């Protein structure tokens, strides 16, 4: 089978353009949860019902109503191998839930992979927009437009009092989850992170790791998102996240300057050591890789490692994941082999970029 391009390339096209504040914010994401009116939610749907829901929703894309978005790929999850699904999860194009639990799951994907619409995840429809850097408002506007197109074609489950009805009560109302992926090494190094994260929790936001719900924050990457979906408008939710993230960006930048001013040699030493290890090690587990790449990323943004390109780091973040390593290697790998392959990959990528 010919490898699809979205499985082959680690870095989505949308990640190749520079976004605002990309030295702190890797990406911004908005996800809207929607359901069809006269069909049970995917969890309770019979195979026939979920099949019908899938055909109806894919039909919207097939009808050409979404043509303004450029060429779209319509992918039924049943057509994919387990490894291909894993790769899509690692690229954040589908959720682990869609990959593993869904029946008649499908994906509508734009050419540069900044729009991914999941069908038959926990909800019938999950519209997801990804943007490089800090562009949460832009992501919401785009998501809302796509939402309008679907609403013209299918009947949404909407209630005057409760808003958009979702399978999980934590999404009801607006169905919106807006998030920004932030790299906060200086706040971690200066010990300010816990204070900031607990403050963030008090304003209705929540912080998770790189791979969403339940994932650990590795490599100093934090995903900050709204917790509340009911009783606030989408604009309020997006604006709240925007303001808080803006403050976190400023704190991180100030902490970086302070690190440089107070302990330049020590921070430089740490960064160079990590760079040295990444460019020479023969075995590299994912946890160490994440931490060392975080150091290198900080080095790039502090201007200490001019030989490394930011995009290489973004690409490695995806391509060093187990699924990607295995599909690049062409066969299943033991964890130990994975760590060796990962070390090889990182070495070769850092060499190219220098």
């Amino acid at each position, binding site marked *: 089978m010919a490898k699809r391009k979205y499985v082959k390339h680690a870095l989505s096209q949308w990640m190749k353009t520079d976004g605002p504040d990309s030295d702190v914010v890797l990406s911004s994401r908005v996800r809207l949860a929607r*359901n069809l009116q006269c069909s049970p939610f995917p969890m*309770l749907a019979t195979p026939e019902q979920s099949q019908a829901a899938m055909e109806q929703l894919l039909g919207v894309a097939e009808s050409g109503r979404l043509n303004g978005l450029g060429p779209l790929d319509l992918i039924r999850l049943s057509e994919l191998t387990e490894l291909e699904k894993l790769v899509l999860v690692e690229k954040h194009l589908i959720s682990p839930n869609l990959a593993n639990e869904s029946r008649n799951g499908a994906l509508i994907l734009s050419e540069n992979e900044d729009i991914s619409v999941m069908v038959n995840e926990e909800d019938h429809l999950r519209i997801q927009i990804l943007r490089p850097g800090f562009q949460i408002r832009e992501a919401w506007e785009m998501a809302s437009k796509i*939402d309008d197109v679907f609403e013209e074609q299918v009947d949404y*489950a909407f209630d005057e009092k409760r808003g958009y009805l979702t*399978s999980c*009560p934590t999404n*009801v109302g607006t169905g919106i989850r807006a998030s920004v992926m932030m790299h906060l090494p200086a706040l971690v190094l200066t010990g300010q992170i816990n204070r900031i994260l607990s403050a963030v929790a008090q304003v209705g936001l929540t912080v998770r790791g790189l791979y969403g719900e339940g994932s650990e924050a590795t490599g100093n990457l934090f995903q900050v998102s709204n917790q509340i979906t*009911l*009783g606030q*408008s989408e604009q309020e939710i997006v604006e709240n996240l925007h303001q808080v993230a803006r403050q976190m960006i400023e704190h991180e930048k100030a902490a970086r300057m302070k690190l440089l001013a107070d302990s330049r040699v020590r921070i430089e030493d740490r960064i160079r050591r990590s760079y040295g290890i990444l460019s020479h090690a023969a075995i590299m587990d994912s946890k160490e890789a994440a931490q060392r790449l975080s150091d290198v990323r900080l080095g790039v943004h502090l201007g200490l490692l001019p030989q490394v390109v930011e995009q290489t780091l973004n690409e490695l973040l995806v391509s060093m994941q187990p699924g990607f390593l295995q599909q690049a290697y062409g066969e299943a790998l033991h964890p130990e082999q994975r760590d060796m392959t990962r070390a090889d990959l990182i070495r070769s990528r850092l060499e190219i970029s220098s």
Partner: protein
Amino acid sequence: MQCQECGNRPATLHFTKIVGGEKTELHICETCARDKGELIPGTQSGFSIHNLLSGLMNFDPAGAGTEMKQPAVRCDTCGMTYNQFSKIGRFGCSECYKHFDERLDPLLKRVHGNTAHVGKVPKRAGGKVRTKREIDELKKEMQDRIEHEDFESAAQLRDRIKNLEKEVSGG
């Protein structure tokens, strides 16, 4: 049935308490009842069943170990009961929201701090809701115009509101 206190002996005493339509049951053995301080009704004691039960009342319905029997609230459309919902935390279909409506306010309040949607309203499914919100907006604007003694604009707004109101009640 095992005693809920010690978990060893069979429960021989069964208490049922109904508060605000919520039924709570307690099943314990005689020994534990004595230890708890002559819980057995009819004996003279200051201990009230309420003391014991109030602890149970604080349990989440989804909490483990408490055998709380709730009146079976069921969604007619998909067949999911409220008990199932509270265990898995997911609704079965959009109609569940209507069938479980009375019980949702406290839950939503706890999760979101709110119980009502104020955000986007879809064009088609939202239909009248959208128009009603527009009317509310226009009324506010009209009030504002009146306060600024701009009666001409206020009159125009009043006419638009009238038209929209006709739309809502007529269509």
